[in-house]
């Protein structure tokens, strides 16, 4: 009997929702880390009971939490009274320090600030945790100010993959109003050296050597809110999604425009088609149909709520261009919630389940690939992220 575990990060803690494969009745556990912002929680594909969580607070900074029992209990890796061989206390798990080493060969000191001046990189929080596809002790962290870190010891210690910030365009990256965060990390099961990341507001980047070197992959993106709309970097990419069976094809929800590439980011083309608005945050791919994709259109960058106050997921079965509104079970009047970039996910059951969380605290579930929806829970704090684990 299969089951589903949904990991929900909110403004005031983390929650774990569980259901049998029918996805009709849900148990809600939490809040974990109550009162803290939980930007993201994600389980390891190599060991589903291994879950990482990013817990942060304006008062106390960043804390990494780890569960080894499917989210029932949590620990701060390295945070206990453990002593190293030298007798010094451990507790490095929350330490994200930017690489300033000489071997980088170029200064990594500043990026563009809101007013156009250069500004030092300052660590603020972890936006996204991406566990390795094969090793439960290896996990990547996308952070604000934008950088990529990796832990190979289960979250005890973190080291920057500084080739990303150091490849040359870093001084041209700038924050959006929500900060300059690295929010998307995509790993390719068939090509362990390949990593895609996306940053607001810099764009998408690709490494083909496991994170050592990087290049921008933004050709074809056009953003009217930057001085050069076709610039190599500076685009506010909101989210990228990939189907594991077709890793050269990526789908992107940008700050305006839904985009697609079929050559691993070398060129992008717009597939917004007949969407009522091509502004939005999340984008997701069906678990079994690589050309079936989902977005949640938002009215505009100035009004972050659904067009005409009707919450609608849009589905394309043709890889973009042609879209259908999915409305059954979703509020179709007086709805002013948003769906944030990391707050949509799919399970791998058949039919595919689709999940998303709102800033109004609802987590909606479709057990039939989007044809109809129902809330698994509806009064949580504002939802920041949703991830799904399909369990045997």
């Amino acid at each position, binding site marked *: 009997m299969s089951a589903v575990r949904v990991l929900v990060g909110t403004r005031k803690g983390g929650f774990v929702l569980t259901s049998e494969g029918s996805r009709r009745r849900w148990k809600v556990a939490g809040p974990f880390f109550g009162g803290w912002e939980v930007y993201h929680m994600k389980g390891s594909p190599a060991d589903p009971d291994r879950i990482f969580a990013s817990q942060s607070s304006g008062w106390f900074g960043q*804390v990494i939490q780890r569960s080894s029992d499917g989210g029932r209990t949590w620990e701060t890796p390295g945070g206990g*009274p453990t002593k190293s061989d030298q007798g010094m*206390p451990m507790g490095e798990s929350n330490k*994200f320090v930017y690489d300033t080493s000489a071997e980088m060969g170029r200064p990594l000191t500043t990026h563009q600030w809101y007013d156009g001046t250069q500004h030092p990189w300052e660590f603020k929080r972890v936006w996204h945790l991406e566990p390795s596809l094969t090793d439960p002790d290896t996990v990547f962290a996308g952070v604000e100010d934008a950088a990529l870190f990796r832990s190979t010891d289960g979250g005890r210690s973190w080291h920057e993959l500084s080739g990303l910030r150091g490849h040359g365009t870093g001084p041209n990256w700038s924050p959006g109003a929500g900060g300059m965060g690295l929010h998307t990390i995509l790993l390719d099961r068939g090509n362990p050296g390949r990593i895609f990341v996306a940053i607001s507001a810099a764009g998408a980047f690709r490494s083909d050597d496991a994170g050592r070197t990087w290049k921008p992959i933004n050709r074809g993106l056009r953003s009217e809110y930057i001085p050069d709309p076709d610039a190599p970097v500076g685009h506010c990419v909101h989210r990228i999604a990939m189907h594991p069976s077709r890793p050269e094809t990526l789908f992107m929800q940008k700050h305006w425009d839904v985009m697609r590439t079929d050559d691993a980011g070398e060129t992008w083309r717009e597939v917004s088609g007949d969407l009522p608005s091509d502004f939005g945050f999340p984008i997701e791919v069906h678990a079994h149909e690589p050309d079936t994709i989902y977005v949640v259109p938002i009215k505009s960058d100035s009004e972050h709520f659904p067009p005409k106050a009707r919450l609608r997921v849009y589905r394309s079965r043709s890889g973009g261009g042609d879209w259908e509104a999915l409305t059954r079970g979703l509020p179709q009047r007086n709805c002013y919630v948003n769906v944030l970039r990391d707050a949509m996910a799919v399970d791998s059951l058949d039919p595919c389940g689709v999940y998303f969380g709102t800033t109004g605290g609802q987590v909606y579930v479709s057990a039939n690939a989007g044809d109809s929806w129902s809330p698994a829970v509806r009064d949580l704090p504002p939802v920041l992220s949703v991830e799904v684990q399909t369990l045997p």
Partner: protein
Amino acid sequence: MIRVVLPYHLRNLAQVGNEVSVEVDGEATFGSVLDALESRYPALRGTIRDHATRKRRPFLRYFACERDWSLDPPDTPLPEAVASGREPLLVVGAIAGG
């Protein structure tokens, strides 16, 4: 023993009660008390002082003996009442909604 009162969220993080006690080798200063606190409760590293800069996080203050010591240098000796354990050092978070 030096007594330290932590804010609610840090008590939960360190899995301790309202007040903890730490010992300091040598002269007890505000900096050395925080070093000892982080040594005994490594989960607190980075939560009171920034990992990289070692500066006090901006939403936290240090109070003791009815005085705000937040802006005093880390090598400032503790007041005798705190060093002797008669009074606690309070780590206090800024008041805010939510």
